[in-house]
């Protein structure tokens, strides 16, 4: 009891002296509560029969009904499958590109050329998704698009790419690589810049070629960075760029392009089936959380062992 009182009076004293940092902290904390934690409270509608008129708290509970509906729905299962397929494919094709680019940039000795090339390949990162989609739609259009113009020059039939399910993933992943490969290489270039020059100097004395040095010195030296980035990437596996998908897909390409978040968008935001869509979102967030936590644990273990 006395202990408690002591604590209280200490806290009073502390607040009188240090109130300013709490004033500074308040907007951030309020913002997090209002815009991020309050929606987490609202997630309960995934287990409720939500009605706008009753609101979140007063809608009746329905247990796991929405989850039963979801897992019995071909559309949802297809979206789960597509989410994993698209993220795995972009991992396989998108992840190595920035590493290769960084290694290649490192071999360029002409600084003007290097700077110019870097300036250009970083640029698409700063361009809006809507513009990326606009470029893709224009370039792949059946009659007006440059891609089909080239195909016709080469003597092939023109293809209406954007309505063909088999073309959706290559186009989506390709445009992702076009937009992000250059910018993502910065991290690896930074790692390469940290490699000790003495390693290269002694290799040169031993008569190593540049090709050998790239494989035997540079690549092993940046391996920890590569592994950390890979782990982070796996943690964010479910974060496929659904904004670009919304802009590019059409009913005819849903079979390969519809992912969990686009399904939530259609069913929830366009179709007003809020509770069902929230359940799909909760499933997505839970899997993502497990992935991130696993990735974090692995990363911690890895960086600790790499220290020894």
């Amino acid at each position, binding site marked *: 009891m006395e202990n408690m009182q002591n604590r209280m009076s200490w806290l009073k004293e502390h607040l009188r002296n240090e109130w300013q940092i709490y004033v500074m902290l308040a*907007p951030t904390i309020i913002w997090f509560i209002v815009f991020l934690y309050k*929606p987490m409270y609202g997630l309960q509608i995934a287990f409720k029969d939500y009605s706008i008129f009753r609101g979140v708290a007063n809608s009746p509970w329905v247990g796991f009904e929405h989850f039963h509906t979801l897992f019995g729905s071909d559309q949802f299962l297809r979206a789960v499958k597509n989410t994993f397929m698209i993220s795995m494919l972009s991992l396989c094709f998108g992840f190595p590109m920035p590493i290769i680019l960084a290694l290649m940039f490192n071999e360029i000795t002409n600084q003007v050329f290097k700077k110019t090339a870097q300036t250009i390949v970083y640029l698409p990162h700063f361009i809006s998704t809507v513009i990326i989609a606009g470029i893709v739609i224009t370039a792949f259009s059946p009659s007006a698009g440059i891609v*089909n113009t080239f195909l016709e020059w080469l003597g092939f039939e023109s293809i209406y790419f954007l309505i063909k399910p088999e073309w959706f993933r290559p186009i989506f992943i390709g445009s992702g690589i076009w937009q992000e490969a250059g910018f993502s290489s910065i991290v690896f270039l930074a790692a390469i810049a940290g490699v000790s020059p003495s390693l290269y100097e002694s290799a040169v004395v031993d008569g190593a070629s540049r090709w050998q040095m790239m494989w035997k010195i540079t690549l092993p030296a940046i391996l920890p960075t590569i592994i950390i980035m890979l782990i982070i990437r796996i943690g964010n596996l479910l974060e496929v760029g659904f904004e670009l998908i919304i802009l590019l897909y059409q009913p005819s390409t849903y079979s390969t392009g519809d992912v969990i978040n686009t399904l939530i968008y259609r069913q929830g935001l366009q179709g007003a089936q809020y509770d069902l869509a929230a359940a799909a979102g909760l499933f*997505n*967030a839970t899997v993502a959380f497990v992935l991130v936590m696993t990735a974090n644990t692995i990363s911690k273990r890895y960086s600790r062992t790499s220290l020894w």
Partner: protein
Amino acid sequence: MTNMNLYSRGDKFFVRINMVLIALFTISTLYPFIYITAVSFSNGSEAAAGNVVWRPLGFTIGAYERVLSEPLFWSSYVNTFIYTIGGTIVSLIIIIPGAYALSRRQLVGRRFWNLMVAFTMWFNAGLIPFFLNMRDLGLMDSYFGLIIAFACNAFNIILLRNFFEAIPSSFEEAARMDGANEFQVLWKVFVPLSKPAIVTITLFCMVARWNGFFWAMVLLKDEGKIPLQVYLRQVIAELQDDEEFGQSLIDATYSFETVTSSIMVCSIIPVLIFYPFIQKYFNKGIMMGGVKE
């Protein structure tokens, strides 16, 4: 690695091949921009027939004339500036003091507050609860709603907090001796010392605002409030299945392709103007954040 004398013949071959490959990659990155610029200045029928490759055919500014005569284009352009500038200012007003407070040792419950911020990077309620929350708060369809709802995020706060934590306490001692309060210490000592980190966050915020479209599309119903990216999306969606627009191709100075391309060019121009500045800071800034995360 720059000593040219040490190259063997194999090395020279390797370096050349490498240069060629990088040049090819660079050109293919740049090409889509050249392509849409060429399309935007081309005659509508040439563009619709797919003849444009890298330079305008039948040069015309017809598409631009049509786009620039649209009041909605201008209002959305102005709106984008409002969201970008307003959003960035609000972000900095929240993030800078917040990150400073979280970096202070004397803050009671510091671990808890930091965990509260970091947890949102790992778990997210998702689109629907966020949307319903915005509706319940009455923040749909308002400039203020869109600005405040995306003013903050865990990543930026943690990035800046780490930067503040790395500043040795000897820097603030002189100010404390002079009787400076926390606000003065932040403003006169920490902010000037953290310029690179603050510029990085400012750029993150500005780029995100300039390019953001999803929530603007979902939350804004009033056409007068939509930003440029949402407008562009509407034009693409409308023109794509507008029969009449297709009919007008016969004498067309503009077409679906040239109109959308010219809006895209107009939207990219401010990014290009700002880009050298972005680049100068990003190379340093992003690494700093990446290493510490």
